């Protein structure tokens, strides 16, 4: 198949997917579990891919994702809460000091930009660090950002420890899908550009990469800033999905969750991250919910089922995936036409 025909088919498939999602929404109504899961899955897909860009493609072990999402989510929320509602939202701070609002699409962009700015600042000192030291430093920064946002004195801007609400949210599931798709598309383009190759070179061997004339710091910084930009956008989308944001939720556990998705999907596989996001969200928030409530089959009470059991089963599931799919669902390959062809070839043998 020629490259151009492949591209066309790819776009057609994507369009078909969008159409399917739109039809589902039509059929099930905006308010249904499928749609909720699809929304969150789309948001997480973007965030996971942005993390994969750092961890999987550039080999920078960063655990700061939740911090940048937090920045993005707050930037979005703070600037889009309608004036009329500010008094009630900033109940402890006389309506806060930001007395204007901006259109939501601008705010989404701004969310990315602010997160990217933070990343540029933070990157300057910490990107000199290696592997686990980098991880703990970025984790630390995420925690510091959270503490700052929760700081009482900044309450007039951030509302302190209290949540933000009443800003514009998704009206249709297509919105997060389109935004995520566009963002992931851009990340894909970057990965497959000469810069993306340089990222992978840095991942494979820093010393050799530097000897090939690749400026380590600048490229790491680029990956870090781009990843954070999209994490910020993802944070804004997450805020839209949730309808409320509170700094409290953006703990390291959230970063771990995303890291889990990335690894389960396969480090260095964009399609893996996307698939894993939807699976992970559906599994943890939807399909397994029944495990939490007691179930009677006739007069027989199914043992073990009670609150908390879902999470136990879920963590066992994760362990099983990690132990038996060491390199994740996709390894470092991508979903492609060739793959199916080869699969078929093997099957027909």
């Amino acid at each position, binding site marked *: 198949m020629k490259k151009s025909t492949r591209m066309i088919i790819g776009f057609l498939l994507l369009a078909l997917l969008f159409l399917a999602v739109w039809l589902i929404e039509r059929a099930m109504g905006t308010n249904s579990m499928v749609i909720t899961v699809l929304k969150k899955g789309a948001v997480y897909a973007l965030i996971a891919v942005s993390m994969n860009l750092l961890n999987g493609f550039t080999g920078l072990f960063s655990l700061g994702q939740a911090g940048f999402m937090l920045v993005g989510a707050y930037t979005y929320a703070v600037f889009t809460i309608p004036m009329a509602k500010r008094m009630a939202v900033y109940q402890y701070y006389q309506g806060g000091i930001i007395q204007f609002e901006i259109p939501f699409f601008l705010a989404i962009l701004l969310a990315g930009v602010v997160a990217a700015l933070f990343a540029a600042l933070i990157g300057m000192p910490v990107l000199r660090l290696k592997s686990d030291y980098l991880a703990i430093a970025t984790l630390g920064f995420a925690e510091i950002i959270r503490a700052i946002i929760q700081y009482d004195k900044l309450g007039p801007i951030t509302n302190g420890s209290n949540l933000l609400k009443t800003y514009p949210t998704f009206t249709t599931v297509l919105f997060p899908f389109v935004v995520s798709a566009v963002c992931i598309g851009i990340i894909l383009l970057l990965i497959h550009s*000469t*810069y993306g*190759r340089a990222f992978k070179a840095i991942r*494979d061997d820093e010393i*050799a990469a*530097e*000897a*090939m004339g690749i400026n*380590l710091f600048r490229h790491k910084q680029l990956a870090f800033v781009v990843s954070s930009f999209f994490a910020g956008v993802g944070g804004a989308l997450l805020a839209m999905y949730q309808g409320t944001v509170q700094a409290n939720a953006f703990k390291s556990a959230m970063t771990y969750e995303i890291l889990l998705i990335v690894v389960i999907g396969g480090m260095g596989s964009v399609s893996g991250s996307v698939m894993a996001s939807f699976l992970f969200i559906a599994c943890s928030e939807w399909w397994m919910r029944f495990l939490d409530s007691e179930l009677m089959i006739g007069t027989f009470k199914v043992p073990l089922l009670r609150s908390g059991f879902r999470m136990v089963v879920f963590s066992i599931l994760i362990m099983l995936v990690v132990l038996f799919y060491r390199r994740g669902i996709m390894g*470092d390959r991508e979903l492609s036409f060739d793959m199916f062809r080869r699969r078929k070839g093997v099957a027909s043998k």
Partner: protein
Amino acid sequence: MSHVLRLENITMQFGGVVAINDLSMHIDQGEIVALIGPNGAGKTTAFNCITGVYEPTNGAVYFNDQCIVRNQPTGRMKKLYAGDNRTPCEGPRIAMTPDKITKLGIARTFQNIRLFKSQSAFENVLIGMHLRRTSNPFSATFRLNLQEEKQMRQQAMELLEIVGLGAFAYEKATSLPYGQQRRLEIARALATQPRLLLLDEPAAGMNPQETDELGEFIVRIKDDFKLTVFLIEHHMNLVMDISDRIYVIDFGRQIAHGSPAQVQDDPEVIRAYLGEEEA
């Protein structure tokens, strides 16, 4: 007296260990110069000082008369400094990073092969071309550099053909046999469009037959690409065959210098390096 590469009084110390001791040498355009010496003499360290991987304790390196490295002992090293040359190098400290030096036109291969493991041979070469790009992240992402990208791919393919790896372009670099990995490393270095090529034991792990082929190959690319080659090697057949001049070092110090014939017969070199039988 314009040399392609000139080392001036380089001393490299690791704590108390003096790996290179007051080493001065020069290489001229179009030469193949070999650096030989016993194991641990400081050959690889010399390469590392030239390419900016290590910062020498004292001394300067000039590339086409441009100073790329210069340092003198400071702080703790002042006390520890044990080089022969007790007068520290003059001038402000210059410490270019390896990527800058590569950009100026010095490329290298590594003693222990360092290919980009997860990438194909083709991609390895493409990465070598990254530093000559004109695109910025934005134009590269949004494919405003199609022309350049096409050119890069074409050149990379040509390079692979030249080193005889055309057929293996899409193989994973690490799945290639050893000898071909060495060639791929050279192709990748060539991709950075160097003026000076540093080869660290390119024939290690090759059998004599392959080594012979490699020698011919090095001479050929030197001519084709108008390169200057600086080479570390323990295979004496190769070294004696292709080098114009040879520097011999031991314990970081130069012990001999001259044409292959001169060096081969130097008693000091025989004592320290070649051994009796070979002579």
